[in-house]
């Protein structure tokens, strides 16, 4: 009896990790368990954040988009018929929302000009002083000169390297430990920008 009670009180995602854990949370959230939804928000907000940042949003807009995406998931939770596809859904929805925000902003300002300005002025700052040395500064500057596609991909690569984000690698079809051709090109571009900057 005690065992049964304990079992019934344990949350279905406990003891699971990665995609299995989040799929279990999705199923529970779809059944109305709000605490399951909070787990998803806690564990997958960094993913949404980095996709938003990788798509050219400043930090304030990126935070708005994080909330917009979670509200959208709450709104459409019953429409996600495949709980294991959550990471992919979050990535796609965040990209779409980022484009929407940038398009709206471009109503006032020429888009490419605004992005260029943003990259020059708000990245990398105000964290600027944290940059350890000149090499860090050059690498961070080079990173922000990459195309948004590459910036997003490399940010996701960073996330996917952490065990709890294995679902991200799966959603993007990144086999663990391998660097696909697109990522390889992005890394080569980064290396060229980084080396070019220093004149070495």
């Amino acid at each position: 009896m005690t065992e049964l009670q304990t079992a019934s009180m344990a949350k279905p995602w406990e003891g699971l990790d990665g995609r299995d854990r989040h799929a279990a949370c999705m199923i529970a959230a779809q059944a109305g368990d709000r605490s399951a939804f909070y787990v998803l928000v806690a564990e997958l907000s960094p993913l949404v954040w980095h996709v938003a940042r990788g798509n050219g949003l400043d930090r304030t807009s990126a935070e708005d988009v994080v909330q917009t995406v979670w509200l959208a998931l709450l709104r459409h939770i019953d429409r996600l018929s495949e709980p294991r596809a959550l990471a992919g859904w979050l990535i796609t929805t965040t990209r779409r929302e980022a484009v929407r925000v940038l398009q709206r902003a471009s109503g006032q300002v020429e888009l490419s000009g605004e992005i260029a300005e943003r990259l020059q002025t708000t990245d990398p700052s105000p964290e600027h002083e944290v940059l350890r040395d000149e090499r860090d500064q050059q690498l961070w500057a080079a990173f922000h000169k990459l195309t948004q596609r590459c910036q997003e991909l490399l940010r996701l690569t960073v996330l996917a390297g952490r065990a709890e984000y294995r679902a991200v690698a799966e959603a993007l079809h990144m086999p663990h430990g391998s660097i696909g051709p697109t990522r390889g090109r992005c890394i080569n571009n980064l290396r060229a920008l980084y080396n070019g900057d220093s004149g070495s």
Partner: protein
Amino acid sequence: MRTHQSDDELMSEVARLVNELDPPPPGLIERAQFAVAIDDIDDIEFEVARWEEHRPLAGVRGGLPGTITFFVGDLTVMVNVTRTGERQRIDGWLVPAGAHGVEIRVADHGSTTTTADEGGRFVLTEVPRGTTQLLVRMNAEQSRTVVTPTVDL
């Protein structure tokens, strides 16, 4: 020297910089959890409003009072915030006008509700400061509820 850096070495440098220089802001998760912690939201159709990107008084993000705007579809809501001691007064204007229900949720302070007048104007006084979310329940269409992302007021 760095020309010979391997892909893995370069990626681990990038990982360090991304994690150190552009981490999610402190409180991001808590604010997002608050934004979705709306009572009885499971059974209603709602729309998610966006804050106006081009905020004339974007400084409100830094805690300064001012005017902010959000929109969704044909609905626009303008909100003016005035400090009154420890609390604040919120004047709002909904377009299209109507006697819509307005709820303001403030993290750790519950929520305050009012109804806009026929001209779409509403006033809430003595609103606590903090992470704030607005909900608008459209009068004409009972099923239409609009929620915003949070803003720190």
